[in-house]
């Protein structure tokens, strides 16, 4: 057991199962020294929604980039240096005054890791996964994102093949802002589609 297991309390059943997996997989040579610490550090500090915010801000200030982003999301996102697991087939969907997009994974927890990091817990929970498909307008309102009745809601179910990212509308009154300042306005939730800016 590593120092991560240095608890005064006895291990719970799931902690025991994870410890058994760690021992087995380490014994089989599948877990390089330091691998778990490194990947945890990366997802807790490097790979997160600021990456997506930079993509969105670039699209807001550079029409050519925006066109490339909507045509081939994976390639345009790679232009900014972002890619990797769960980001192989990125499709970016654009919000407009008439259309609001939102992403979900009905079967598990597929999510665009390179631009948003790992998903928040509610994204992985059964109520969100079921209700965002069945009653998106009601659920969005409950989540603090009420939409006018004439706005069409498009729900995108992530899959093994495709990961989606929402391109939010640029807020009014931001004409004088720099790209970096704009990136600071973009929230994770707006790129999932459960918030508007």
């Amino acid at each position, binding site marked *: 057991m590593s120092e*991560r*297991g240095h608890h005064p309390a006895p291990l719970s059943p*799931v*902690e025991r*199962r*994870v*410890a058994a*997996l*760690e021992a*087995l*997989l380490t014994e*089989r*040579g*599948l*877990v*390089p020294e330091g*691998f*778990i*610490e490194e*990947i*945890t550090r990366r*997802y*807790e*500090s*490097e*790979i*997160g*929604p*600021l*990456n*997506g*915010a930079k993509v969105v801000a670039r699209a807001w200030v550079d029409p050519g980039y925006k066109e490339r982003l909507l045509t081939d999301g994976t390639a345009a996102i790679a232009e900014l240096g972002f890619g990797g*697991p769960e980001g192989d087939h990125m499709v970016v969907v654009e919000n407009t005054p008439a259309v609001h997009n939102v992403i979900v994974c009905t*079967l*598990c*927890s*597929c999510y665009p890791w390179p631009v948003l*990091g*790992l998903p*928040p*817990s509610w994204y*992985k*929970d*059964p109520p969100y996964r079921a209700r965002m498909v069945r009653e998106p307008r009601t659920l969005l309102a409950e989540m*603090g994102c*009420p939409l006018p009745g004439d706005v069409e809601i498009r729900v995108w179910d992530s899959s*093994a093949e495709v990961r989606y990212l929402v391109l939010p509308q640029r*807020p*009014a*009154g*931001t004409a004088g802002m720099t790209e970096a300042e704009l990136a*600071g*306005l*973009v*929230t*994770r*939730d707006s790129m999932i589609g459960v*918030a*508007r*800016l």
Partner: protein
Amino acid sequence: MSTQLSLSGLDLPRRNGELVFDAPWQSTVFGLAAAVIDNAFCGDREPFRQQLVKAIAAEPGRPYWESWTAALEALVETLPERPVP
């Protein structure tokens, strides 16, 4: 919500990280799955994803990282026995 630039209460990604795990065993089992995908499946995530879909469908109310653990256990079952040196 539409009030211009009034974004308090939203989760601003100014800092690129957030605590994504609630307990050490969760980050451990996340990292273990990544290690198995990389080192036993040549980076192909699909076999693990299929196990995760099955694990979640089997017990929809189970906490997410426990389903993740069950999925990894099932995936490990599919690995060939360690070759004899």
